[in-house]
């Protein structure tokens, strides 16, 4: 179904972090941007669609007044809003927001860090752009910060702090179908496997809590009112967001899942795990029966690699990209 393309080399290897690959497709300029986190650095590479031109940039974590810090970055992700696109970095010290090409830092939010390290680690992780003007970011305490983003400029405001999770936030996702008909706008996940489903607004509203089963949920997507969640046991579960009804359970991987992605136009689901496997599935909605069918389409083994990032490069799922721990390349596949 897919064949391997030429890999893109990156300046340093990928760290073992959840969802360690972000992709931004810039159609007007025939470019795709990729970011991969390495310790305290984000590697950005811009690739032209003809495969001939690549340019690289590195961003570093920030700490107080120090521009280049050794504090570790947990995640980097593009947030696509109607008015603008921002690149968000979350680290042990805070949250950095840049213009989408990484050229200018637009906003910096420092986390409350205790003087001496505490038993509970402090970091930010989990990033999602929600609706018109919100960017949400998770914290190790379980809090979710909601930022109000102006259509241009740097006047970002912290609008709300959502306190439902009691364990460290792992990932979050907003409704990616492009349709307004679904009530749920955002799903947030944590280390206990708890999923919280929200409706955005001036005050975010908690619609439902889907309980965990004491297994960390490391990656989550929301599409057509349906949650796809990947767990540390290697299982993928499909839920109806607002009710928490389980549509499907997939014994997908033999190790911890690190990344999920959905191609919104085709309903393809991509999963990558520590077991070296990337798998492509298809989700079929049956609105009449209120059920979802899951079909396995394709598997690829990236030999001797623990996968840490897997993302589709386009809305149809025609191509996808993969990163692995200790690998200094972005591996790409395209439909045959």
């Amino acid at each position, binding site marked *: 179904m897919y064949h391997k393309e030429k890999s893109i080399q990156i300046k340093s290897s990928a760290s073992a972090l959840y969802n360690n690959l972000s992709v931004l497709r810039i159609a007007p300029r025939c470019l795709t941007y990729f970011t991969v986190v390495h*310790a305290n650095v984000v590697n950005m590479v811009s690739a032209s669609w003809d495969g001939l031109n690549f340019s690289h940039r590195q961003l570093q974590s920030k700490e107080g007044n120090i521009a280049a810090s050794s504090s570790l970055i947990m995640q980097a992700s593009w947030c696509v809003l109607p008015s603008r696109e921002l690149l968000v970095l979350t680290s042990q010290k805070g949250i950095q927001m840049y213009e989408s090409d990484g050229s200018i830092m637009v906003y910096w939010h420092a986390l409350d860090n205790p003087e001496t390290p505490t038993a509970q680690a402090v970091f930010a992780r989990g990033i999602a752009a929600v609706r018109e003007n919100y960017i949400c970011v998770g914290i190790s305490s379980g809090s979710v910060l909601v930022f109000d983003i102006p259509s241009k400029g740097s006047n970002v405001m912290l609008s709300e702090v959502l306190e439902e999770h009691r364990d460290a936030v792992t990932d979050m996702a907003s409704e990616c179908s492009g349709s307004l008909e679904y009530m749920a706008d955002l799903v947030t996940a944590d280390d206990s496997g708890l999923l919280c489903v929200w409706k955005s607004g001036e005050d975010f509203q908690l619609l439902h809590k889907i309980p965990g089963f004491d297994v960390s949920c490391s990656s989550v997507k929301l599409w057509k009112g349906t949650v796809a969640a990947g767990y540390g046991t290697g299982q993928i579960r499909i839920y109806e967001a607002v009710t928490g009804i389980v549509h499907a359970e997939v014994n997908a991987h033999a190790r911890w899942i690190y990344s999920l992605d959905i191609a919104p136009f085709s309903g393809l689901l991509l999963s990558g795990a520590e077991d070296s496997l990337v798998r492509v599935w298809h989700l079929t909605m049956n609105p009449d029966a209120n059920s979802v069918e899951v079909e396995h389409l394709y598997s690829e083994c990236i030999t001797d690699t623990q996968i840490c990032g897997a993302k589709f490069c386009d809305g149809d799922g025609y191509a996808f990209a993969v990163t692995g*721990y200790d690998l200094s390349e972005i591996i790409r596949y395209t439909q045959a």
Partner: protein
Amino acid sequence: MSSKTLPLLFINLGGEMLYILDQRLRAQNIPCDKAKKVMNDIITTMFNKKFLDELFKPQELYSKKALRTVFDRLAHASIMRLNQASMDKLYDLMTMAFKYQVLLCPRPKDILLVSFNHMDAIRDFVRDTPSILSQVDETYRQLIEMYTPLSGGEFQLIRQTLLIFFQDMHIRVSIFLKDKVQNSNGRFVLPTSGPVPFGTQIPGLIRMFSCSGDEVKRVQFRSAGNYSSALREGSFEMYGERVIKLGTNMYSVSRPVETHMSGASKNSAQHTKVSTAPNPLAKEELNLLARLMGGLEVRKPANPDSRFRVNLFATDEEEEEALISRPDELSYEVINIQATKQCRVSALLKATTTGGEFRPVTYGYKGSNSNHYATSNSCEYAHIEEILFGL
């Protein structure tokens, strides 16, 4: 990242170090009483109460350089001496072994079982010495208290922190290459077969449900792997069957250990990239652990003849050659021991030394250009017996 990583890193690396030293002491036919003294002295130092109290405090991981200094001192806590090249090789082996164990752990929580495997072996090394045994038992209790309540997600964070520490290390180890657990490019083999981790199902099944919760369809898919059911869970108690084999002693007298320097990462520029940001601990200031380690005086014997040198290589010539040809990017840049003379002594440090005053450890070293060890005219032990052994 996790502030609970350092104890696991230290204990597992220490355990690997003891396995390797035990093998070398036997391979070089060091007399039984001397060998035992070395092992006991190192284990006593490793599990010193003040040292462990500091180790178990919540803190960020040390830099590679800072941690290497701690192990340099630990390796020299007794009458045994190691040259620079042998110490480098020892540290390479220790770190690659633990990197392998962390990578291959079925579940992040199994890192604790790996740690218990090392602890079980250490307990066995000192089973005849009750005083040290009680220190080891106390450490078990501390490990159990700190780590057994942690969730899978918190263990994964510890694992991710460790993997960042080991990032880009691809030193080839002969015993790993022979056993086919490492490729010739230095990367470890990740099997796609064998038992699944405890708590995981064998991949292959898709179950679909109606909105009332009844299972309506079951489909099997080809999983492109060859997995079997999980083994039973290992014990997290002080005594028990650990089940996992990672962290048990893979060396024996007949299996020599060599490393290949040329197996370093092709893009060696990557090594230097990570450390561009200033890390306070990477500077010349000794960290507290290293100072504590250096201050722990094990009674030095009055007779300098009891000291001896252990070689991690087959011959002295090989050892010297290894020192000269070690690639720059793999240099650990050990903090010069000479610098310790100028260090201010902290109150805590004073409390740990027997004489109440920090006496710097000095070495005399015959005929080497190495500047990593201080030479001192007032050194008590002017002669170090160099005992040449072949394999």
